[in-house]
C-alpha cells in the first residue's frame, strides 16, 4: 500500500497525475510540466514534498554523531542555519545527500530523500556510538516548497515574520496562515528564490495551509507543481538527484561535491577512502552535457562515446530544458573528457549525437 501525504485529496481534486515515488503516491504533474516549470521560473509554484524524510538528532553528542556520518563540517552551523551535505559508506560511495538544520544546542534535524528513509535511519543508527538520540519524525512532518520570484511576496501575506530578512540557507520558526511553529526555511531545489515550510501535521490543518498559500499566490499566478517540474527545474541548475547522479557507486569528489567534502574536519565515515581517491586522482567526473540537435534528447542510462567509438561514460539525468529549449544532461565521463568544451557523443536510439561538455548550471 502506497503512503499518502495529508495533501493527497487536494492533489486528486486538482486532477493531478499520481505516481509511486519512493513508496509514496505523489503528484508528478497537474496539468502540464511545462506550465508548472515556467510558473516557478517566472512567478511562483508550490510543491508537496512531504514524502521527504526528517530525523531529529538530540543529545550531548548530537554534533559528534552528525560530524561522523556526514562529509561537510557541521561545526560551522549555528542555530538557525542549514547545511547541504552527504553521507558516505566506508568505501566513499554515497548513502544519500541531505540537509542538516541546527535547531539549537545539541538539537538538529536531518532531511533525507524519501526513498532512502529506512536505509538512512538504519545507517545512522548503526554508526551511533555516541551519546545521541535519533528519532524518525518523517511520518508527522509535512513539507511544502514554495518557489519562484514571487514566493516571498506570496508567503509574506500569511506571516508577520520578515521573510526578506531570512537569508539563503537560514530558517526561522514562525506563524504562517494562523498556525504556530512552522519552520520557514530559505532553501529549495529549483534554483529560484523560495521557502521550504516544515510543520507537524498534528498541529496544523495541512489542507488549510495549502489553500491559504494558493489563495495568497493567486494574484501572482501560483501553480501547484509536481515532481516532473521539480526534476526539470533541478536539472537546469545542475543539482544532483540521488538514484540518478549520485548513488552508492559514486563518491562525492567525482560528483562535483568536493566543495562540501571537508577532508580535514577530523575522522568521519568514508574519509579514508576519499583521501585515497583524492591522492590517486579522479578517473571520471560528473559533468554537464548540452546537445544542439533538437531531436536528440539524452536520457538516464544512455551511453557516452568518444569520437573513435570508445565508451567513455553514461548519462545519469537528461531532458529537454524547458527554459532554454535545448537538450541537456548530466553524466559521468572519463576524466580526459571532463573539461569544459570537450566534445563527446551520446548514443540515442542507435544514432550518436554530438554533445558538448559543460559546467552546470545550464540556466544561470
Amino acid at each position, binding site marked *: 500500500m502506497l503512503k499518502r501525504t495529508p495533501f493527497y485529496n487536494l492533489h486528486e481534486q486538482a486532477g493531478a*497525475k499520481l505516481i509511486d515515488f519512493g513508496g509514496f503516491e505523489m503528484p*508528478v*504533474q497537474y496539468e*502540464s*510540466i*511545462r506550465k508548472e516549470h515556467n510558473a516557478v521560473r517566472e512567478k511562483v509554484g508550490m510543491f508537496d514534498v512531504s514524502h521527504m524524510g526528517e530525523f531529529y538528532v538530540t543529545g550531548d553528542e548530537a554534533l559528534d554523531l552528525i560530524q561522523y556520518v556526514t562529509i561537510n563540517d557541521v561545526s560551522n552551523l549555528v542555530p538557525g542555519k542549514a547545511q547541504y551535505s552527504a553521507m558516505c559508506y566506508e568505501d566513499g560511495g554515497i548513502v544519500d545527500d541531505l540537509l542538516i538544520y541546527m535547531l539549537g544546542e545539541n538539537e538538529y534535524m536531518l532531511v533525507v530523500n524519501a526513498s532512502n528513509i529506512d536505509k538512512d535511519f538504519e545507517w545512522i543508527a548503526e554508526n551511533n556510538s555516541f551519546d545521541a538520540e535519533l528519532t524518525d519524525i518523517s511520518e508527522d512532518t509535512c513539507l511544502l516548497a514554495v518557489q519562484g520570484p514571487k514566493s516571498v511576496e506570496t508567503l509574506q501575506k500569511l506571516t508577520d515574520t520578515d521573510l526578506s530578512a531570512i537569508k539563503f540557507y537560514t530558517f526561522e520558526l514562525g506563524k504562517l496562515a494562523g498556525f504556530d511553529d512552522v519552520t520557514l526555511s530559505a532553501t529549495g531545489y529549483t534554483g529560484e528564490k523560495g521557502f521550504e515550510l516544515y510543520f507537524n501535521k498534528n498541529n496544523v490543518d495541512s489542507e488549510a495551509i495549502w489553500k491559504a498559500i494558493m489563495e495568497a499566490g493567486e494574484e501572482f499566478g501560483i501553480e501547484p507543481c509536481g515532481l*516532473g517540474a521539480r*526534476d*526539470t527545474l533541478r536539472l537546469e541548475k545542475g543539482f544532483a538527484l540521488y538514484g540518478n547522479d549520485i548513488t552508492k557507486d559514486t563518491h562525492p569528489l567525482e560528483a562535483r561535491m568536493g566543495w562540501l567534502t571537508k577532508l580535514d574536519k577530523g575522522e568521519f565515515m568514508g574519509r579514508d577512502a576519499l583521501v585515497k581517491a583524492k591522492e590517486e586522482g579522479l578517473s571520471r567526473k560528473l559533468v554537464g552535457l548540452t546537445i544542439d540537435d*533538437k*531531436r536528440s*534528447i539524452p*536520457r538516464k542510462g544512455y551511453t557516452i562515446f568518444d569520437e573513435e567509438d570508445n565508451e567513455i561514460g553514461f548519462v545519469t539525468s537528461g*531532458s*529537454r530544458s*524547458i527554459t532554454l529549449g535545448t537538450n541537456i544532461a548530466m553524466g559521468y565521463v572519463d576524466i580526459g573528457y571532463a573539461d569544459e568544451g570537450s566534445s563527446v557523443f551520446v548514443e540515442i*536510439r542507435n544514432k550518436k549525437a554530438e554533445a558538448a561538455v559543460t559546467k552546470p548550471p545550464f540556466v544561470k
Partner: protein
Amino acid sequence: MSYPTDLKYTKEHEWIRDNGDGTATVGITDFAQSELGDIVFVEMEPEGFEFEQDEVFGTVEAVKTVSELFAPIAGEIVEINEQLEMEPELVNDDPYGDGWMAKISIEDEAQLNDLMSPDEYKEIVA
C-alpha cells in the same frame, strides 16, 4: 478522455482512421498524450518508408519520457504531419485532429478491421 467512434485503436495507444482511399491516418490516443505529458517532438520515419505491423515507425519525445510508435498495420508512410515540427503541442491539444502523425497506405484491410473498437480500447485504459 474521448475516444471517437469512427477510429480503430491499438494496445500501444494509437488510433487509426480509414480514409476510404486506400490510406489511413495514424496518431496517439487522448490517453497516450495525457500519460506522456508535454510533447516536445515527434519523429516519424520518412515518406516512402515501408513497415510491417508492430514495427517501430516513429518516436514521440515528451519532456520526461520517450515512447516509440508501433505501426498499427503494415504499409508505407505516404505523408507526415509537417505542422508538428513547429507545433508538437498539437498532439496534446488535439490528438485526433491537428495532432495526427502520419498517413500510411493500407496493405491489408483485414489487419485494420482486427484492431480494437472504441469500446474495447476504453476497457483497457479504464
